[in-house]
């Protein structure tokens, strides 16, 4: 493994889901930065980019909810300084 590859995630049990979610959000941001510029130029109504960005953020927010709703409070007190 190269030095640059020594990320802290290597021994992490949730590594796979971390990278899956990171990839999913990267995909969402690629859509965010490209779709309105490339494919929605011809739609001159609120059903074009306006609707796209609203749907986009709803999908992003739902994705975030799916992640953080799994968080739990176990042993929080024990970790408190």
């Amino acid at each position, binding site marked *: 493994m190269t*030095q*640059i590859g*020594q*990320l*802290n*995630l290597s*021994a*992490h*049990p*949730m590594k796979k*889901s*971390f990278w899956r*979610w*990171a990839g999913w*959000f990267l995909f*969402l*941001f690629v859509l*965010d*930065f490209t779709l*309105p*510029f490339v494919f*929605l*130029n*011809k*739609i*001159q*109504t*609120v059903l*074009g*980019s*306006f609707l796209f*960005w*609203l749907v*986009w*953020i*709803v999908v*992003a*927010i739902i*994705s*975030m*909810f799916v*992640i*953080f*709703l*799994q*968080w*739990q*409070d*176990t*042993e*929080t007190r024990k*970790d*408190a*300084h």
Partner: protein
Amino acid sequence: MNDTVMSWTALLIYVVIGIVVAVFARKRLGGGMNEFFLANRQLGGFIAALTYAATTYSAFMMVGLAGLTYKLGVGALGFELTYLGGLVLVVFFGPRFWLAGRKFDYLTHAQLLADRYDNRAVGIIATILCLIFLIPYAAIQLMGIGYLLAGITNGAIPLVIAMAVATLLAVVWSNIAGLRSVAWTDALQAVIMLVTSIVTLCFVVYKGFGGFGGFFNRMNQDIPQLLAGPGLFQFQVFLGLSLPWMFFSLSNPQVTQRLFVPKSVAAFKQMIAGFLIFGLIYTVVSVLWGFSARLLVPGLSSPDLATPSLLGLPLIPRLVALIVMVGILSAAISTIDSILLTLASMCTRDLLKNGFKTDLSEQSELAVGKYVIPVLAAIFFVFAYWAHGRKGLAFMIAPLSAAASAGLLVAVPAIVGAFFWRRATAAGALSSMIVGAVLVLFLQFSDYKPLGLWPGVWGFLVCLIVFIGVSLVTRAPEKKAQVFLDYLAETLSRHRFL
């Protein structure tokens, strides 16, 4: 009731309610730095969500974003929602801040960086960056308040008086009970911001267009050019605006400090959920506000006049205009007092105590912090006062404010590296922040945009390369990295954090 009396009455009611809330918050105030600046890391989810929202969303939303929509169209919605989508960074990094903050007793992100990289200069530079870029940003908020209040009240509340009242309120609300009073007044102001903006938008849409159906039809018919693709945004402009904002939740210290304060994981979840819902509604309302201005008052010489011009229309009753005024005032002051509190904590902890190794007891540190708050506020005010009257300073303050988010962005590689790269070094962090900040300032002041890309984009790319390159050829603080990262690896999974 005439205009002057109505304006001052609205302002007075707002001030009195705010002070009552702040004094109420003081009842729960204990002693020490953590208590004053972090509410003893014991904020509930609901208040945490509202203070996060009020701190993040400034007067920019109903004035600047509405103006951007007015001028360039739907891309403004995309730009602001890109920021909101960027909150996924809080989902990835927030738990790490929260856990490390509790374990190692961090007060600010600069302290976290200095400790993680085992180098106090890192904390000093991170703090200086925040001072350079946030003081003009706060000053421009004051100027915005001054112009808006003087404009809406037709001079009944003079510009300088409005700025002075806002400065004083920010100091009082910060000092009464630190983060407790700021968080509770923020919560009140967040509710005011959201409710007033929704009520006023509905008022404009129903009075001006007969309802949302008529409003959208008018948008489709009258301003199709602002709805096609990204509207009139060029890609470079969209990228230049969006990139620094996408990382806002990691780069701005007044926001990262909020990641230390939820009292539990449940409170942390409520904070994120509440903020996402608030942000979505407030963003859509602000953008629709801009579109309604474009339809009702087209042809303005400056897009910044969109909101004042809309509020000056006969279809808007004076009372409604004054309610919006209070809403925008709330947005600005809630941002200023949070910046005040965060910068004060950085000046005392990261510059004075840890940076220059002064032997301060916690009591003295807190006392100094409380003195720093009015001093910083006075600097904000002086900046704003001089800039509003002198073209020379206005020339300086405008690019500095525009550079604020781009400038703070250069700390992001060091922050990401602290959590994810064992090999990251203090030299890498220092050089990336310094080189990045100098580059952003140079590009901003020279107005030079190589390949058409904005300063934030170049600053980010260059500081990322410098951070990685310098870290690879310098020595990492192995022991500290191990303690820090191993603790996180162990505890993250226990809470099912990513």
